[in-house]
């Protein structure tokens, strides 16, 4: 039990230190002639500011430095220039399949997931009875720990699992063998996508439903007066009005897809053929196995950062074409 005590002491020391630091910052700034309001502001945001410096800014710079070195933790890092980016990337046979898997996983599961979520949200927005009950139900999978979801689907998608048993008439009909989902290279990606759809679509449904509820009904009435049908309402009112919410879920979903980690740890994917998630590759190089390659892992982390930045930039750029903000004037 002394390990609890140890952390409690650490925790108390840091908390106390933080309180003292906030007080000192306030006093010093006031003595230096700063207005009390400004000094209080700086003192209040100090926890975040310190956290940003210690846990974000320094680590980013450090990992950039490590990415140019050979570093196995036990010996000091050795500068190797661009080696990690060039030599390792061309030699690491699991990188390209993993990049492909991570990107395809996001590119396929995101649009399908958003379309499904929007569909369900639109059904719920039709003033159905017991919206609350449906919403509770649909959101349930998103509440369950991701790890529980993965274990559950590993079981459901086993070669003798429930899904294959339910689908076995279909397999017989089209003369196909039962796929062993996460083992067979061809079915690993579809399996992962099915799992992710089940896990997240409820959360997006709730977000989109909130967006749909914000659409004033008089807009729909206007379309009706003009003789427009259901499609016109969807195309000209629902879609533009809900596009900022769709944009928000798209950006978050994209970042989450690139950062996918747990499925790749709990489901053993062949990193040379199927590929695995990039984040798992980083973890594997840095922490798992005998020789840790912190330098190479940092380089991979930076490649992921660049991928996320490029994708985010693309989505933000494209948003001018399809996202409609009501307050905006053209």
């Amino acid at each position: 039990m002394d390990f609890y005590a140890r952390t409690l002491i650490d925790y108390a020391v840091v908390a106390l230190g933080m309180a003292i630091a906030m007080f000192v910052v306030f006093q010093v700034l006031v003595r230096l002639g700063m207005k009390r309001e400004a000094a209080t502001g700086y003192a209040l945001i100090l926890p975040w500011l310190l956290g940003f410096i210690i846990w974000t800014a320094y680590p980013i710079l450090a990992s950039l430095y490590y990415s140019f070195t050979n570093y196995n933790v036990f010996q000091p890092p050795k500068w190797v220039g661009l080696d990690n980016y060039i030599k390792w990337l061309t030699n690491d046979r699991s990188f390209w399949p993993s990049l492909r898997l991570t990107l395809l996983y996001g590119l396929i599961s995101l649009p399908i997931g958003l379309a499904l979520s929007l569909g369900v949200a639109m059904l719920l927005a039709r003033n159905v009875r017991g919206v609350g009950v449906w919403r509770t139900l649909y959101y349930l999978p998103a509440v369950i720990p991701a790890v529980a979801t993965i274990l559950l689907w590993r079981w459901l998608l086993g070669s003798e699992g429930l899904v294959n048993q339910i689908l076995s008439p279909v397999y017989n009909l089209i003369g196909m063998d039962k796929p062993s989902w996460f083992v067979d290279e061809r079915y690993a990606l579809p399996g992962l996508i099915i799992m992710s759809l089940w896990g997240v679509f409820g959360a997006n449904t709730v977000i989109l439903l909130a967006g749909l509820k914000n659409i004033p009904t008089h807009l729909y009435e206007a379309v009706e007066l003009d003789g427009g049908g259901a499609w016109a309402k969807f195309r000209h009112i629902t879609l533009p009005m809900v596009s900022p919410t769709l944009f928000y879920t798209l950006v978050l979903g994209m970042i989450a897809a690139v950062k996918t980690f747990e499925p790749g740890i709990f489901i053993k994917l062949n990193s040379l053929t199927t590929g695995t998630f990039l984040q798992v590759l980083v973890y594997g190089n840095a922490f798992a196995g005998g020789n840790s390659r912190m330098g190479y892992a940092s380089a991979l982390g930076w490649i992921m950062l660049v991928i996320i930045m490029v994708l985010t930039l693309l989505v933000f750029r494209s948003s001018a074409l399809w996202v409609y903000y009501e307050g905006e004037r053209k």
Partner: protein
Amino acid sequence: MATVSTPAPPKTALRTSGIGSMKVRRMVSDVITYILLVLGALVVLIPLLWMISTSLKTESELFLLPLRLFPEVPQWHNYIDVWRIQPFTQFFMNTIFITVLAMGGEILTCALVAYGFARFRFPGRDILFIIMLGTMMLPGIITLIPTFLIWRGFERIDTFTPLTVGALFAWGPAYIFLLRQFFLTIPHEMEEAATIDGANTLQTFFYVMLPLVKPALLAIAVLSFTGNWNNFQAPLIYINTLQKYPVILALYAFSESLSKEAPKWHYMMAMTVIMSLPIIALYFAAQRYFIEGLTVGAVKG
């Protein structure tokens, strides 16, 4: 809508048939709506029911064909067995210890920081706030390795310190953002009144402001609780000793031992249920706050 284009029959007929067809139309679309909703609900529920039903089966029932949703005799003792195979009480205490410390630190410091951003003018505030929002996009993996090396430098690997103490540095830009939005809606008169009554900044914060943003605090508490409870990557990296495992690592270790020869999926599913149950209970108890925390960024931002 359909009536607009149809040529006009006699007046009375138009009225009745028009309303009649509208009604039928409405009914048909309602029926379709409910059928789709029920189908969706089945897709959500069947896997969950299967998880519970598997956890109550015997090992020989696992692959018995035809598959049955309900086991012959529910094996409730599976849950006790699971508890006996591994020191689950210890794992639970570890998870609760980590979750409570991290959650407490997170809520308190994020509220302080959000209050600072919302209510006090100081040079560089807006730039700092944008930087803070920008860190939301950052993949954690970038900071993971140096952070690990910092804790290693402090000799805190295989302790709970890396999983909890970081929370005191206002983890979670999303929480700060959410709280700031709430603080902004509170009229300034509240603080002015407190100041006139002789309260200092901290007293105003704790006795006036915090009670006013209670819904936001609860939303964050719920998010933070689930986030820490479900956190897998950090314990995987920092914790090595079995005795210090949180529940989630115990699940991982057991899942690694599953094989074709020892397909103990009934135990695996029982553990999964045990781990999910507190979160599901919290969800049903505080559903409003889950939804609030989830939607506030999308609709207000």
